[in-house]
């Protein structure tokens, strides 16, 4: 595994019922990198996250995660083990514990099985401080006593990111973190991603091109289960294949809509 890589996927293929979703995919992320992953609907972005987190097993390929020098074979471990090694994930639809308060959501996440008996004791000073700091960082301090279920869609996204932050995940996988957010909320989230990307690796799946343009340095374009293009946003945008892929996709969509309207 190369020195500076935190995650390497080699030749990964996934098919559901014979339908290929990831096609001999090669993909890697550096330490302390903020990477954006884009691609049309159904390109396989979420499936790639499923592979990296152990939720789905590929038909072939190898996936390695570098955990402070030791190499973890992702395909041999269950989800919760990988989380403990430092792979954190935010789901496409926000997943928080809706009947717990915001504070409680973070309190159960903060001391996750560092020591199995920790959950039977009250939260310690250090963890408490960490939770409060994180709440401050994502701007949810005032809501800490509210039920997570009463938060807005955007606030739930922040809470889910906060969960990954208190867990000190080394690699954060964020599936569409700004979906359902207002423009100012997007701005704040973008700043947040930048600031947490300083000492962690962050992979952001995103559809909102304006957001990507504004905050992305390096972008990977996934199309039909393959990496179509990778590099700085300005270059990727001008890649004829990318334009073709998005255009083709849009054309298809437009055609579909038109025919649907015709009936």
């Amino acid at each position, binding site marked *: 595994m190369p020195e500076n890589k935190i995650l390497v996927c080699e030749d990964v293929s996934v098919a559901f019922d014979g339908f290929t979703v990831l096609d001999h995919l090669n993909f890697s992320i550096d330490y302390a990198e903020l990477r954006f992953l884009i691609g049309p609907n159904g390109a396989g972005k979420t499936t790639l996250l499923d592979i990296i987190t152990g939720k789905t097993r590929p038909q072939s390929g190898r996936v390695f995660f570098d955990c402070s020098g030791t190499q973890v074979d992702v395909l041999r471990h269950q989800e*919760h083990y990988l989380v403990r090694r430092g792979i954190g994930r935010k789901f496409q639809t926000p997943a928080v514990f*809706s*009947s*717990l308060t915001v504070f409680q959501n973070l309190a159960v*996440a903060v001391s996750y099985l560092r020591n199995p008996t920790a*959950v039977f004791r009250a939260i310690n000073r250090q963890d408490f401080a960490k939770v409060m700091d994180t709440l401050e960082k994502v701007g949810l301090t005032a809501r800490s006593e509210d039920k997570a279920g009463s938060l807005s869609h955007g606030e739930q996204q922040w809470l889910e990111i906060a969960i990954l932050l208190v867990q000190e995940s080394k690699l954060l996988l964020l599936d569409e973190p700004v979906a359902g957010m207002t423009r100012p909320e997007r701005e704040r989230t973008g700043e947040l991603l930048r600031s947490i990307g300083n000492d962690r690796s962050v992979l952001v799946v995103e559809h909102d091109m304006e957001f990507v343009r504004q905050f992305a340095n390096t972008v990977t374009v996934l199309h039909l289960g393959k990496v179509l293009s990778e590099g700085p946003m300005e270059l990727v945008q001008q890649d004829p294949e990318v334009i073709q892929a998005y255009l083709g996709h849009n054309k298809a969509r437009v055609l579909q809509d038109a025919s649907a309207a015709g009936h």
Partner: protein
Amino acid sequence: MNSVNDERMKAPLILEGTAAGPHATEPDTRNAIRSQRHLGHVALQSAPLALGLLALLLAPVFLSDFRLSLLAKFLTYAIVALAIDLVWGYAGMLSLGHGVFFGLGGYAFAMYLKQEASRGALPDFMSWSGLTELPVFWAPFANAWFAIPMTMIIPAAVAGLVGYMVFNSRITGVYFSIITQALALIVSILFIGQQPYTGGTNGITNFQTIFGRALILDDVRLTLYYVTVAVLVLSFLLSRWLISSRFGWLLVALRDDENRVRFIGYNPAHIKTAILMFSAALSGVAGALFATQVGIISPALIGVVPSIEMVVWVAVGGRGTLVGPIVGAILVSAAKSSLSEGSPDYWSYYFGALFIGSVLVFPQGIVGGARQLSSFVRRRRPGYRRV
């Protein structure tokens, strides 16, 4: 409704009456008011509990022997209901097989009581079914100090085994309920079939003494009653501590989103198995107290139908409230015994109506509904201010 809600319900009282709100008072005064109100609220919340406990403690003074023995039986049910609530009301797993855990505890202690009643001879039902020698696994139960821990260890071990297999294969929801129901069916059939070892359909009965003292003596009955009250109170306090710890939050988290629990690094199978084992151990103690005071344990008391009845106590009382299941178990059982004194045939209809009614009209149960009502009333009072 659950304890997490309880925390929330405290909030409205904290500053109620300080019309100007928190910012008008000095921080110190504010804290003083807050803690005073908090104490006041704790007192208010604990008052019904204290009254309930007082009633249980004084019951022997007011109730006839017959009524007291009924109450003792209901209290053993209340312990099971509490145990089911932890698993169902908090962790969200509907078990339809808690009769098994109750029964295993009951049988474990019945093995002691029966051997003491037989005074060294072979227990009667064994000789009737042709055994000439005491089965090896029966022998250690002659000692009460072996049997007592076994009333918890055996149910917990079965729960651990079944739980781990089920949860590790990620079986959840209605499939878990079906499997636990199958467990209740299998165990009751097994116990009926193994007559020489279990007493078959009749179960184990005709107990005489406990620790050498006759079970019919008034002071023995009274002591057993108070032991039951003590076990109930202890179970309640232990459960309350458990659900207000972070482990308890984790149980609620499991109910909300099991996948997210996995993705914060816990193995849900471990947490679920742990709480099921704890619940089974509580149920086992209840079963032992039941067998001792009612004088019998049999397959009809531990199979599918009683297991469902147990769930109904929790639903009627209010799941996720801890107090609710206790109230539910006592009220439903009391209704059953008074109604079936008159017309035993109709009880199942009443019971069905009660269950459907509680699910449709009062999904939060008695206690859950009452709490909702009181917080609604409080909120509408002038001077209310959310903090």
